[in-house]
């Protein structure tokens, strides 16, 4: 379907697509096997200027928005969601600086992130604070003109690979969620080290690692916004990024569908290609219906966000994550069914698509948490109407 993208958006999609076809697809199986971080591909993405896309022009960016990011993430995920999430996680780390950072912080960090010279990461999750993000235990105690960070973050995408981390920590424990703040921590700061690197089911080439803070001192100038705005920043960040997870799921589902269509045209059983069987055609049709619906949803949501016309879009953003990630799970499982025994083997890429898809129902807010958000917003909306 023609989504009426601008010429520039088409260029962006085309560039990401070229990286997928030329750089990612030839090595994705090996990356999946070894779990090695795709540093070379990240350099290719940087050379194509794709890290510049969502950074404002005055800081070395192109000044695009959510839709442009989604287009890139979708295309990269068609190749490998592990690569795509390494790209997307840097955008997730850059967003709080771009949106809430001081002029000084923007000047210092955004050009480095725009060029792709440095990667960013966002650190919220802790061993005891996942869906219950208010339960975080990492503290940032103000001391003179510094904060002293203590605590451990887990499952941090780009952990160890990124140079610039946005960390959510409690600057005032008594205030609960209103006592959380967002701080910029640079790799190499004394007291900041990396713990366990996770061995994952899918997105295996992305780096998922523990961040350990042990009396790590950072200057007060690294506070983003004001003290106590950490959760507002986090929620705003996720509201803007959830469509990106949707785009990951979309690319993953599209990749699996493409493989299923291709295979069904080649595989011969009972003297015919299996694509001639209605049982297979209906499977492919159902997959395509879901993929296209997910795409329409993501692009519309991203456009709405970029327009800036709607202030509260947590419901829409949650929907644009839940539906595509559920679609990706269903479509990748079905793709394996189309390929039959071969689909179950690592010689074909569909089993990897399935393993990659699973995380998208989990991270950046589980789909259950997303449904909570959607449900709450529906109730709020209905109350507003009654008034």
């Amino acid at each position, binding site marked *: 379907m023609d989504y009426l993208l601008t*010429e*520039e958006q088409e*260029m*962006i999609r085309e*560039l990401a697509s*070229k*990286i997928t076809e*030329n*750089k990612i697809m030839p090595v994705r199986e090996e990356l999946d096997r070894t779990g090695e971080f795709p540093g070379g591909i990240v350099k*290719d993405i940087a*050379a*194509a*200027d*794709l890290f*510049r*896309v969502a950074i404002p022009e005055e800081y070395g960016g*192109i000044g695009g928005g959510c839709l442009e990011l989604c287009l890139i993430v979708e295309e990269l995920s068609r190749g490998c969601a592990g690569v795509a999430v390494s790209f997307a996680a840097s955008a997730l780390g850059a967003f709080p600086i771009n949106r809430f950072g001081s002029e000084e912080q923007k000047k210092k960090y955004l050009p480095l992130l725009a060029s792709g010279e440095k990667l960013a990461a966002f650190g919220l999750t802790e061993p005891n604070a996942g869906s219950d993000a208010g339960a975080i235990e990492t503290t940032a105690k103000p001391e003179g003109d510094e904060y002293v960070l203590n605590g451990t973050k887990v499952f941090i995408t780009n952990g160890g690979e990124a140079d610039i981390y946005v960390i959510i920590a409690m600057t005032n424990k008594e205030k609960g969620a209103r006592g959380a703040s967002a701080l910029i921590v640079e790799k190499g700061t004394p007291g900041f080290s990396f713990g366990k690197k996770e061995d994952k089911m899918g997105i295996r080439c992305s780096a998922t690692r523990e961040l350990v803070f042990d009396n790590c001192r950072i200057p007060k100038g690294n506070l983003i916004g004001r003290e106590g705005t950490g959760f507002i920043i986090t929620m705003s960040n996720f509201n803007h990024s959830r469509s990106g997870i949707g785009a990951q799921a979309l690319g993953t589902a599209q990749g699996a569908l493409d493989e299923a269509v291709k295979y069904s045209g080649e595989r011969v059983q009972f003297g015919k290609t299996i694509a001639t069987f209605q049982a297979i055609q209906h499977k492919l049709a159902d997959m395509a219906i879901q993929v296209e619906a997910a795409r329409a949803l993501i692009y519309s949501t991203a456009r709405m966000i970029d327009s800036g016309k709607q202030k509260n879009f947590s419901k829409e953003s949650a929907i644009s994550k839940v539906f595509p990630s559920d679609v990706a799970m269903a479509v990748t499982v079905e793709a394996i069914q189309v390929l039959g025994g071969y689909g179950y083997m690592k010689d074909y890429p569909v089993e990897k698509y399935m393993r990659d898809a699973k995380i998208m129902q989990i991270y950046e807010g589980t789909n259950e948490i997303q449904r909570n958000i959607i449900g709450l917003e529906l109730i709020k909306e209905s109350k507003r109407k009654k008034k």
Partner: protein
Amino acid sequence: MNIIVFIKQVPETTEVKINPETNTLIREGVTSIINPFDMYAIEEGLRVREAKGGRVTVITMGPPQAEAALRQCIAMGVDEVVLLSDRVFAGSDTLATSYTLSCAVRKIKDFDLIICGKQASDGDTAQVGPGIAQHLNIPFVTYVRKIEEIPEDRKSIRVEKMVDEGYEVREMKLPALITVVKEINEPRLESLRGKLNAKKAQIPVWTFSDMEMDKERLGLDGSPTQVIKIFTPQPREAGEIFEGEAEDCVNKLVEKMKENKIV
């Protein structure tokens, strides 16, 4: 280092179809791309510039639509492009083409190195690169797989030339011309900023009247090559492969040769 790279726009297919009536390539309905071997030439030009400074100018001769290939070069990061386009250039063989291209070099005057792909994927002659060097009376090395060194004084270049048995190290004075093989590098992809620049760029077009050239040496008139017939050869049948122990295979092979009265 001022570098000139010559490129050609070719059909994006390895299965070129030929019109049997006119003995020419059927170009309708086939997308055009930059000759794959020329991509290595562009990349090498950019790498030399990055190491030594200077400018990279890409030149192509062709119809107005060859502009698209030049825009792609801008998106990859070259500094300047020129399209040589004129009706009088049409029908050029390799002699007339290399003469025309050499006239563009003479107009530019200031250059240190010319880089071409080893051959075009459509014509496969590998003659235009050396032809340009001959017309300009400069040294050249074909099938370069590596530039080993360009000394600080930039008066010479040392390269590795691919030969059947391995490679030869050759050194020559600059200005010079090299043609490159795919082993030399991996061409970069375009960048977004490059593509945005390419979209805005005005592509300079040089015609016959823009260059000092001898009209009789151009186009069909300047092309002594006459194509009498082009045909698609019949594909050879797949051979038979014997597998197993060497001795058994040899016996089977001898049997087969006897059977076919070869021995």
